């Protein structure tokens, strides 16, 4: 295992540690987010093990896709005030889960394929919900500085992740078609993950239940 994935795992440990240490001070969406990080860490540790033992890490990636989607959308559910959007989130979760099962059985088998048919729509949903949450933040601005708002950091992380993933896949295909060295893509992938989890870490650091309650009154 090279230095980059190890560094990434260390970052995940730091971010989950931050969430766990501050767990009592966190609001519900960020408590959910806290548990997403060690889950990703576990998947990242299991992935090379599976690859080495079973010559494929597709099951890990399949599970990671659906659990990430569940965690992040659940966090969004608690962040939104709009009841219609909350209902949409619940419906999306249900539909995504059903589609995931159908996809895993019929289109992109669970044991052998990466679930791109599930992955792309989930990224689109992340981008849409992050933009909707930015809009809601503008409608109900809080008194505290935006840099100190955990919702801002989480939403920025999701928007960054969703949009750069599409860019990444586009680049990946282009590099593959033109037989370019895939080292750039490799580092770019980890760059996205690093930035995403650093932003998640900042959101866990800035979230505070007391400040949230005070502003809610």
């Amino acid at each position, binding site marked *: 295992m090279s230095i980059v994935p190890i560094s990434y795992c260390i970052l995940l440990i730091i971010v989950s540690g931050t969430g766990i240490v501050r767990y009592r001070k966190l609001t519900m969406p960020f408590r959910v987010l806290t548990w997403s990080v060690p889950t990703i860490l576990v998947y990242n540790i299991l992935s090379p093990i599976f690859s080495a033992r079973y010559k494929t890490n597709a099951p890990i990636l399949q599970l990671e896709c659906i659990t990430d989607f569940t965690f992040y959308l659940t966090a969004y559910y608690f962040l939104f005030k709009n009841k219609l959007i909350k209902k949409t989130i619940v419906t999306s979760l249900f539909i995504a889960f059903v589609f995931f099962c159908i996809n895993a059985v019929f289109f992109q088998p669970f044991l052998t394929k990466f679930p791109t048919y599930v992955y792309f729509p989930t990224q689109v949903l992340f981008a849409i919900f992050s933009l909707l949450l930015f809009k809601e933040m503008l409608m109900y*601005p809080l008194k505290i500085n935006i840099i100190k708002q955990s919702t801002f950091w989480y939403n920025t992380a999701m*928007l960054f992740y969703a949009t*750069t993933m599409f*860019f990444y896949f586009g680049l990946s295909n*282009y590099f593959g078609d033109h037989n*370019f060295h895939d080292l750039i893509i490799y580092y770019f992938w980890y760059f996205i993950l690093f930035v995403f989890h650093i932003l998640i870490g900042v959101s866990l650091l800035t979230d505070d239940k007391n400040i949230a309650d005070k502003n809610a009154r």
Partner: protein
Amino acid sequence: MHDESIRVLALLTTAFFAGITGFIIYFVVLYRNRQLKNKQEQEQLQAEFRQELLKAQIEMQEQTLNYISGEIHDNITQVLSFVKLNLKVADYGNEVVKKKIEESRELISQAINDLRNLSKSLSFEHITKLGLVKTLEIEVERINNSGLIQTNLLIQGEYYTLGEQRDLVLFRIFQEVLNNTLKHSGAKHLKINLQYHPELFNLTVQDDGLGFSADSAAKYSGLGLNNIRTRAALIGAAAVIESSPGKGCCVIITLNPFKRLYDDRNHSDSFG
């Protein structure tokens, strides 16, 4: 070709990240503007609420004072008038007793007169009918007659009307200052100055009493002083209270006569 492709990709990547960063920065700026706008709106609402509350408090005070004025005029002075009448018709025979009765009748007359003047100074209808200058002149005469303090009234500039509401509030401020002077200052002289400039009106009330420091004013919670400031603010005036120990106290009320009294355009005094 390879280099060209890499260059294009680098440019695309840069543009992509610049786009995301630009969006985030734009959002932060927009959010900050929204926060400021919200804060301004909240402050305005709070100011309007405070204004409305003050108005309600002052209206209640005026109604109470008016009621007391009515009671004094209708009940107490009437009763004293009957007492005076009864004393007049009584036949005591004895010269010494008659003299005492006459003295008592004079004291009752004086009491009736004082009560009538007090009733007038409490009644807002009377004050607004006569105007600020006339009301102050009557009040100065009453104070001088009481012998408590020597009062002078000076009017400078060409007189113009400030409006009923402003006249009433300014008179109440004067009464508050007078009350403080008589209770706390031990002053011998009180000067009242009305300055009618074209774009500015000043009411200055100055005494030669003990004066006070800012600390001692705060210690006694300065309720009267706060009342002066809040009443002045209600009519869009500024109240400055200058005093130091041993140098008396000077209260200056400054008012722009052309400033709108209330934001409510429908209010009868909205243009003062």
